[in-house]
């Protein structure tokens, strides 16, 4: 009876996961989808706690088994503590720190899977199939944990440069082989040797570090996404072990969707996954292909403020630099002030602005910019000719006219935002250095363009202050 109810709650949970995931694919239903999936999750958790029945090896319910109150206490304590801490951390931490936080939380999931593996191992001695599932879950969980910690440090800024260890490839291969070797050894040869188990655990942790350490900051989203799907896989192995259907569906959904997503991201970045994981940037060493003749023109904060204040229509072009500077909140403030003054403000979203598909959408959605204000490239391009001021914030390649004009340019043929058609173009970046593609940008030399140098967040904050005083 109880276990039938439990099965049904798992079934409902699995269905909510699929439906929720589906609804999250559409901005209109995303929030609802998330709630639905969370509801299914809570149902599954409550079901697991309250409908638990111990079965013996023949599947018969062991009625004499009573879960001691202390265990319930610990479970509720852990859930309560976890909820409060998780909630507080998420609320207290600056919104702008979300990426590293998400990565940290991912690591927690991995650690959880690894701990389950460590605990359960001894109960399944002798069952090779079950042991393999446990070991696989543990290894994947550990890799995902230590990898996420490194990802956290990198996104956090603590670990700045991609670290290129000497003999990295050899080291990497050695650790990878030892993980596999320890794993096989522990399962097939001496399952009762705990030393090897710990060695395996340790090797997996090292592998996670090695895996993540050489990856540059811009590729971090890909790695996060990959580690994420790893955690899913670890959960799926757990589901296999306990014949727990919701862990299976949830884990596989996250695992397969995450893997697909990782591949899509890599494709959007135009580099194979192996390259993102092992290699440096393709465009890193590229230099300007041709000298651009012309002068650049500076503009200061107060002139910019005046110009924008008296325009009718302003279009903001956000780019990678906006994300780096975490300026999404202050740009929203700027937008609101301008709107108050009767200026129409829109954001022009280039499909590959930033470093991952939808980067700008996520970023601006984070700071509650309304979804209607985000206009996609094809729709905004005809509007530039009627625009008074275009404010380019930390974008470079996506507004580079070389894509239209210079057949020799590496970005030739890429569709760009035609900001040149606007009356005034103001470009904010820190210096004249190149963007992702490593090429110069003729736009900056356009007579209509004024450069507003400085870190995006600083500059925009000053701009807001200036505007308020007008």
């Amino acid at each position: 009876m109880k276990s039938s109810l439990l099965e049904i709650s798992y079934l409902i949970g699995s269905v909510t996961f699929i439906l929720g995931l589906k609804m999250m694919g559409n901005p209109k239903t995303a929030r609802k989808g998330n709630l639905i999936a969370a509801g299914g999750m809570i149902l599954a958790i409550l079901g697991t706690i309250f409908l638990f029945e111990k079965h013996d090896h023949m599947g018969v319910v062991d009625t004499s088994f009573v879960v001691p109150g202390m265990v319930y206490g610990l479970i509720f304590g852990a859930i309560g503590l976890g909820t409060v801490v998780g909630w507080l951390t998420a609320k207290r931490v600056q919104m702008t720190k979300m990426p590293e936080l998400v990565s940290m939380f991912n690591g927690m999931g991995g650690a959880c899977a690894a701990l389950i593996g460590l605990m359960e191992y001894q109960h399944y001695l002798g069952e090779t199939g079950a042991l393999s599932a446990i070991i696989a879950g543990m290894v994947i969980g550990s890799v995902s944990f230590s990898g996420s910690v490194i990802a956290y440090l990198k996104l956090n800024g603590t670990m700045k440069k991609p670290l290129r260890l000497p003999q990295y490839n050899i080291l990497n291969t050695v650790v990878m082989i030892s993980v596999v070797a320890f794993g096989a050894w522990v399962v097939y040869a001496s399952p009762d040797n705990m030393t090897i188990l710990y060695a395996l655990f340790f090797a997996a942790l090292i592998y996670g570090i090695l895996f993540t350490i050489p990856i540059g900051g811009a590729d971090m989203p890909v790695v996060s996404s990959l580690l994420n799907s790893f955690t899913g896989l670890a959960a799926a192995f757990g589901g296999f072990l306990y014949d727990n259907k919701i862990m299976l569906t949830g884990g596989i959904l996250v695992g397969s969707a995450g893997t697909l997503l990782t591949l899509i991201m890599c494709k959007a970045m135009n580099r194979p996954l192996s390259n993102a994981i092992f290699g440096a940037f393709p465009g890193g060493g590229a230099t300007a292909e041709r000298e651009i003749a012309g002068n650049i023109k500076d503009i200061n904060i107060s002139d910019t403020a005046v110009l924008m204040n008296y325009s009718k229509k302003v279009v903001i072009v956000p780019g990678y630099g906006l994300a780096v500077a975490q300026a999404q909140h202050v740009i929203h403030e700027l937008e609101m002030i301008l709107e108050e003054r009767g200026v129409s403000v829109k954001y022009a979203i280039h499909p590959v602005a930033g470093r991952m598909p939808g980067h700008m959408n996520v970023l601006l959605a984070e700071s509650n910019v309304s979804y209607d204000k985000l206009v996609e490239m094809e729709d905004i391009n005809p509007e530039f000719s009627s625009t008074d001021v275009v404010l380019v914030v930390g974008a470079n390649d996506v507004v580079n006219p070389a894509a239209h004009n210079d057949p020799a340019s590496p970005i030739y043929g890429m569709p760009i935002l035609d900001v040149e058609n606007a009356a005034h173009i103001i470009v904010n970046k820190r210096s004249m250095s190149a963007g992702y593609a490593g090429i110069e940008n003729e736009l900056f030399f356009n007579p209509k363009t004024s450069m507003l140098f400085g870190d995006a967040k600083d500059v925009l904050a000053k701009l807001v202050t200036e505007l308020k005083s007008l």
Partner: protein
Amino acid sequence: MENILNLISEHREMIYFVVLSVFVGVEVIGGVPTVLHTPLMSGANAIHGVVIVGAIYVMLNVDPTNIAALILGFLAVLLGTLKCSGRVCGN
């Protein structure tokens, strides 16, 4: 060879299950426009936390005299919840 065949046919329910779930996962994501992929995955909080069900299950089965196991289990549930709740609230 025969071993492998038997293994496959023994676990066929599971294999169908896995194959179908993979298709569902891939199809659901595949139909979504590229620009929404990142919000989608960063939104799939609850599902990512499903490992917590496993942690609770292990905890319920634990031998209550084994302090080490109790502590590990407590940690596992705690971390799992952290992952879940941090992401759901944070988003």
